[in-house]
């Protein structure tokens, strides 16, 4: 008899084992992390409510099944009741059971609907801070539309990020607490999805669409998430890290970012002629962050999807064709347009590519060349 019950008892044992395991290693979650916004808290509550209802129903079903398995057995000499389906219960259960289930359904649905309304629609007639979140293969771009700042966010290789590998980025999404923020989601290439569990929502980034979500952070902290829609080869390497800071700290951060932007623009637009070495040093760093995921630091690519640049016909061909592909991308492939980079950055990358590995063209591409090529 006991053997028949093993399925169930084993499942409970597993839960018990996992729960006790968890207390020993608190950092491994078994449920959502604590929410960081009031709306997120409501989502968390509806999750707990439905889970409790589900668990309760499961226990009821299991108790009936187990009772029946124990008592209604031939080996116990229980005689089969051939008329059970013709009793009043048998005749009317098709009404009673659906009515009961409908009641449970409506409880869940009405609670969910209340939360849904708050979550789904961005508050109207209020001042919102807009952040445009653009998914790229395989990095995130955050545009702070109110401040003219753009942040590129990429994963950090394991050597540098250690235990936070795939949960840490080079540039975080810095957001102020106590401010209503509207996120505008879109994509530059394929589908991606924005998911930071502490904010409790997920939204797809779809090319050609701008979808919106909103949040108001109620505590400081660092919240980690990941891209949640399969976006190709390095889907696993698109962490999202939100750094929630007090408004004063956020303002300081904004000023700092704006200063960096101005300095970079000045540097790029200066008519200075850059030396080959300067460009290659700059280019190597830029190449490894922006191009390395596909074409690899070794320049060998990952053929056939991502061609090698080492020995490539384009990289070793005319400069104009090389620039054209970098600036405009190549349609129908994963090669995106990099025209949003400034002239200096493109010049540095192209110079580096033409002189790195076995490529020995000796070409030096200046920012002015890039300007002409645009």
């Amino acid at each position, binding site marked *: 008899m006991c053997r028949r019950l093993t399925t169930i008892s084993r499942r409970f044992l597993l839960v018990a084992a996992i729960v006790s395991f968890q207390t020993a290693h608190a950092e491994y979650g078994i449920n959502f*992390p604590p929410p960081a916004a009031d709306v997120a808290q409501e989502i968390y509550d509806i*999750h707990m409510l439905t889970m409790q209802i589900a668990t309760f129903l499961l226990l009821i*079903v*299991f108790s009936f099944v187990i009772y029946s398995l124990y008592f209604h057995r031939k080996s116990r000499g229980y005689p089969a009741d051939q008329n059970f389906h013709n009793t009043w219960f048998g005749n009317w259960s098709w009404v009673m059971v*659906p009515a009961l*289930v409908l009641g449970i359904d409506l409880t869940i649905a009405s609670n969910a609907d209340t939360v*849904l309304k708050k979550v789904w629609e961005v508050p109207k007639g209020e001042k919102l801070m807009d952040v445009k979140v653009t998914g790229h293969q395989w990095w995130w771009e955050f545009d702070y539309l109110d401040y003219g700042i753009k942040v590129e966010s990429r994963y950090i290789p394991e050597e540098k990020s250690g235990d936070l590998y*795939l949960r840490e980025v080079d540039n975080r999404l810095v957001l102020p607490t106590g401010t209503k923020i509207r996120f505008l989601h879109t994509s530059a290439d394929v589908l991606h999805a924005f998911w930071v569990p502490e904010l*409790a929502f997920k939204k797809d980034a779809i090319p050609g669409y701008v979808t919106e979500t909103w949040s108001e952070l109620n505590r400081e902290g660092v919240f980690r998430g990941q891209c949640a829609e399969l976006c190709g080869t390095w889907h696993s390497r698109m962490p999202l890290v939100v750094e929630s800071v007090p408004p004063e700290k956020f303002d300081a951060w904004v000023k700092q970012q704006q200063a960096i932007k101005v300095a970079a623009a000045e540097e790029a637009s200066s008519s200075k002629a850059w030396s080959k070495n300067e460009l290659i040093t700059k280019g190597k760093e830029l190449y490894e962050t922006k191009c390395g995921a596909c074409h690899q630091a070794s320049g060998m690519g990952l053929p056939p999807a991502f061609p090698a640049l080492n020995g490539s016909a384009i990289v070793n061909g005319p400069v104009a064709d090389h620039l054209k592909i970098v600036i405009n991308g190549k349609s129908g492939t994963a090669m995106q347009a990099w025209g949003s980079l400034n002239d200096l950055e493109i010049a540095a990358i192209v110079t580096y590519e033409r002189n790195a590995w076995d490529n020995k063209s000796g070409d030096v591409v200046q920012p002015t060349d890039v300007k002409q090529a645009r």
Partner: protein
Amino acid sequence: MSYTTAINDDAHHHHNPTGWRRWLFSTNHKDIGTLYLLFALSMLFMGGASAMLIRAELFQPGIQLLDPDLYNNLVTNHALLMIFGAVMPAAAGLANWMIPLMIGAPDMALPRMNNLSFWILPAAGTMLILSFVVPFFPGGGSQINTGWTLYPPLSVQVGMSMDFLIFAIHLLGISSVLASINIIVTLLNMRAPGMTLMKMPMFCWTWLVTAFLLILVVPVLAGGVTMLLFDRHFGTSFFDAAGGGDPVLFQHLFWFFGHPEVYVLLLPSIGVLSHVIPTFSRKPLFGYKSMVGAMIAVATIGMVVWAHHQYTIGMSLGAVSYFMIGTIIISIPVGLMIFNFIATMWRGAMTFETPMLFAVAIIMMFTFGGLSGVMLAVVPADMQYHDSMFVVAHFHYVLMPGAVFGLFAGVFYWLPKWTGHMYDEKLAKIFFWVNVIGFNLTFFPQHFLGLAGMPRRIIDYNVMFTEFNVVSSIGAMIFGFSHLLLLYIVIKTIRGGEKATAQVWEGAKGLEWEVPSPPPFHTWETPPSIKQEQQ
């Protein structure tokens, strides 16, 4: 075989082709049923092998065995092999074998089409496997890294292997639609005199509904992937925003097929349970009529709730509310089905042969999966669950017990009928326990992974997800290898064993148990008369 005499000439039945001709030219429902089942079994092993590679890679953080594109290719292939290669053909195999026996018909209504609908499958299977293999050859393009959902624009980036896959889906679709037409025609026209629709065995009812579902939704998928093909090669932009198209349109087309497909996989197994549970409880099925009603309700509502697979695309509030409530409502007919099964067991005189063990496991685990489905239907909460490992855990809890275990139950239940030999009960029970424990060990921890923040379809993960992934991978190896035992049991039963009686099981009722085990090549050449009580 001459055309005119084939129809109604008893003497002709003794001139059955032998050797390979028997199988290639077969118009016999039993042989075609066997072919379907063998095809499904081979695909089960390929799909299972790809799943075990996936779990082996996920055993530890980091990238050890596979590269990311190969990983995603395996994810794609695992789903397609299991759904289109294993579960659907296996269910069609059961239908071919059992429906004529159950309704007292001499064969399927359209035997030549029956032959065609099977023999398209090996071609489709070859295309499917080619779509996996082609990228490994020079000039073969990139691998299919989209998952079985094939969402554009990613699927437009993929190389020529995607075209192989699109044609494989077309062929599989044609095969399913032909088989469905055949089943509907058989069930509506070939029932023994006196067997009204409401006296029809439950397995036949489930297949009638399934067949209608397939005919309604498969063409939509075929249309969707054809549009994808045109986008890829003929310069259309159905799904390309830059050309005025809409990437989300594909998702709607796909899930308009994809959600009813879930019921296509589930219903035949529900049909099997409706026979297994009464047999081993030794009392009639509880609520035959409500079962039929519930099934039709599931199919109907299931057709209009597809967008709950895409809550995160940014639909309007009205749309998501509708899809949420519609989805939650499905719990009513499904709950009624589960209730009917438990009420059938209730006050029965149960024994626990392997088919019944699987049936009990299905009731418990399918209820579990169904309830996590209700959680997923709740839009605000789904904004968290969506595309996380929680979803992976959920649909394996629904599809494994709901579809695959139901088919296992059916195979063990009818294997003595097909082969004339009893299977080895002791080995089969060992298989059951190893299988069910392996299954739970694999998928139960994935709920926690999802809630803790692990997205699905990633090859590499942070160390915080290690523990549950280790458990899940160990479970997957136990689960995967346990199927070798299934193979051994099946082969052993085919080769010999204790002789089975016509009735096989003490509590078995129905026309299929009145023919000898194994049944002669042709059965019910004169239709049986239907006794008073069928249910």
